[in-house]
């Protein structure tokens, strides 16, 4: 029997605002416990919430980035439950009138494009942190309590672990572009819960689903989905029913454990928070926020591909806004997309992995590339200069001079070298004339060596072909 897997994701994303969602405390990671708290986020008697404008704007931007419809009137509800990290014993969240509804995230898996529908994106506050001290105690830090979050809920359109990871990558990349969040799973600014069920292939009836939490990396999401999918199928084949439950994933052992027993099914008693007025956002304000969004990675990627770049290269260039901004800037100075892409992908990205900081400004890089483009230096020489620029901070022009890399432009001088190479390497000549076309490469290499890299390899190639017939 074949099975379909039906997956829906609930993703939480911390917004990079200066202050918390409902109070003026600093929104910052890593400070002393309970040092960024106040009567409001501590839930002291008498304190009242006041909504952060920027949090709303950021949430709307997220919605617009995925083509959501923005509700002009939005309401905040209280979600009531008891837990030590929830200081008021209710979380201010959204239920009936969330900020954003109906969006799309396009993913690409194994060359196939798929659209994952978003049900909603809403704004809510984060809970504090529980610190387990390992000696039998738990301590609560409310610094994180009240930090604004957006909750992104998909329709159950995802069918595999691959798709789930592709979704998360597309989500992360797009949100990073908007600048509203750091979206780092390792730091907790991006969290994901997985809802999964299986059903006989092609059947209309959905199976019972389970919820998995504590997924702290894309890899964990991948492994957890595959594990749960397998587990559910095995259970069904063994004749058992799937229990609707919440599971905690343990990535260190690659298994999940049940988190909450059946009888604790929560009744959150949602009702509109009487301390908060519904917010009105005008169509003009929504439009202004839309116009304030930068070009998003999927749009940029399509543009780059239209310039003639490959899918792979276009993807690399749109991985972060820093890189695509850089690419765009260099292009304004030298309109040779393939050349620029070549250097950024093979040189800049490589060096960034080692160094972390881009040591060559767009302006400086473009000056180097102009030299290569004009054939004043060879591409190989260009890469040498790039490395030197990175390490010394000197300009392309002065380094070319220093390193004596100016490409030879004297054809007579070149012809002499080519003739010498032919004379000095009769075996290669014979090989080439005998049909081994690749032998010419060796000869080109010899000329390059003799010219100390200054010869133009294409010209050498042409000349050799001409002379050898």
């Amino acid at each position, binding site marked *: 029997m074949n099975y379909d897997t039906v997956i829906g994701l609930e993703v939480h994303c911390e917004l990079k*605002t*200066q*202050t918390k969602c409902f*109070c*003026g*405390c*600093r929104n910052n990671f890593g400070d*002393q*416990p*309970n*040092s*960024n*708290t*106040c*009567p409001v986020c*501590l839930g002291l008697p008498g304190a009242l919430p*006041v*909504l*952060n*404008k*920027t*949090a*709303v*704007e950021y949430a709307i931007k997220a919605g617009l980035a995925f083509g959501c419809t923005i509700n002009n*009137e939005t*309401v905040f509800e209280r979600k009531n439950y*008891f837990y*030590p990290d929830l200081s008021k014993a209710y979380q201010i969240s959204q239920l009936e009138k969330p900020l954003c509804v109906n969006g799309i995230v396009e993913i690409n898996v194994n060359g196939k494009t798929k659209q994952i529908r978003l049900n909603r994106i809403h704004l809510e506050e984060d809970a504090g942190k*529980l*610190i*387990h*001290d390992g000696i*039998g*105690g*738990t*301590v*609560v*830090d*409310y610094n994180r309590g009240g930090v604004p979050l957006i909750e992104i809920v998909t329709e159950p359109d995802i069918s595999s672990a691959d798709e789930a990871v592709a979704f998360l990558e597309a989500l992360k990349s797009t949100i990073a572009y908007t600048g509203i969040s750091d979206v780092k799973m390792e730091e907790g600014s991006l969290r994901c819960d997985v809802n999964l069920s299986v059903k006989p292939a092609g059947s209309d009836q959905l199976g019972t689903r389970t919820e998995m939490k*504590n997924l702290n990396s894309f890899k964990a999401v991948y492994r957890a989905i595959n594990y749960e999918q397998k587990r559910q199928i095995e259970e069904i084949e063994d004749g058992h029913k799937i229990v609707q439950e919440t599971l*905690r994933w343990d990535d260190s052992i690659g298994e999940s454990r049940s*988190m909450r027993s059946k009888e604790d099914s929560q*009744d959150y*008693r949602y009702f509109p928070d009487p301390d908060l*007025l*519904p*917010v*009105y*956002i*005008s169509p003009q*304000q929504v439009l202004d926020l839309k116009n304030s969004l930068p070009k998003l990675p999927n749009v940029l990627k399509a543009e780059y591909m239209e310039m003639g770049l490959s899918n792979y290269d276009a993807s690399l260039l749109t991985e972060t806004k820093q890189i695509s901004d850089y690419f765009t800037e260099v292009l304004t100075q030298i309109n040779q997309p393939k050349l620029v892409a070549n250097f950024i992908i093979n040189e800049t990205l490589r060096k960034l992995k080692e160094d972390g900081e881009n040591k060559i400004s767009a302006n400086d890089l473009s000056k180097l590339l102009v030299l290569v483009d004009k054939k004043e230096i060879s591409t190989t020489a260009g890469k040498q200069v790039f490395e030197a620029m990175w390490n010394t901070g000197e300009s392309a022009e002065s380094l070319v001079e220093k390193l004596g890399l100016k490409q030879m432009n004297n054809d007579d001088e070149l012809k002499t070298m080519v003739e010498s190479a032919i004379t000095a390497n009769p075996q290669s000549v014979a090989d080439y004339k005998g049909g081994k076309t690749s032998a010419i490469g060796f000869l080109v290499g010899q000329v390059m060596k003799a010219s100390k890299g200054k010869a133009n390899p294409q010209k050498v190639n042409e000349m050799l072909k001409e002379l050898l017939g």
Partner: protein
Amino acid sequence: MISKKDVLHIAKLSKLEFSDEEIEKFTTEMSTIVEYVNTLQNVDTSDVNDELSVLPLNDLRADQVKPSLSQEDAIKNAPKKRSGGFSVPQVVE
């Protein structure tokens, strides 16, 4: 009208516990009150609109940091504190 089972369920949601005697009494009291508030069902509200009083986006709080309490003040009233935080029985996740 309200059953003992209902009352026990609500007590759970409320994180309140009662003796058997108190549950009996509560069930009676709550039934009386709920019966009273049920009279609201007879009020015709078909002509009431759902309009909300709203706050325009521009009137919301600006994203500017305000002073927080010191850690000391934040945990001053904590019945049990440790390492700058609020101590609770070990939470089993």
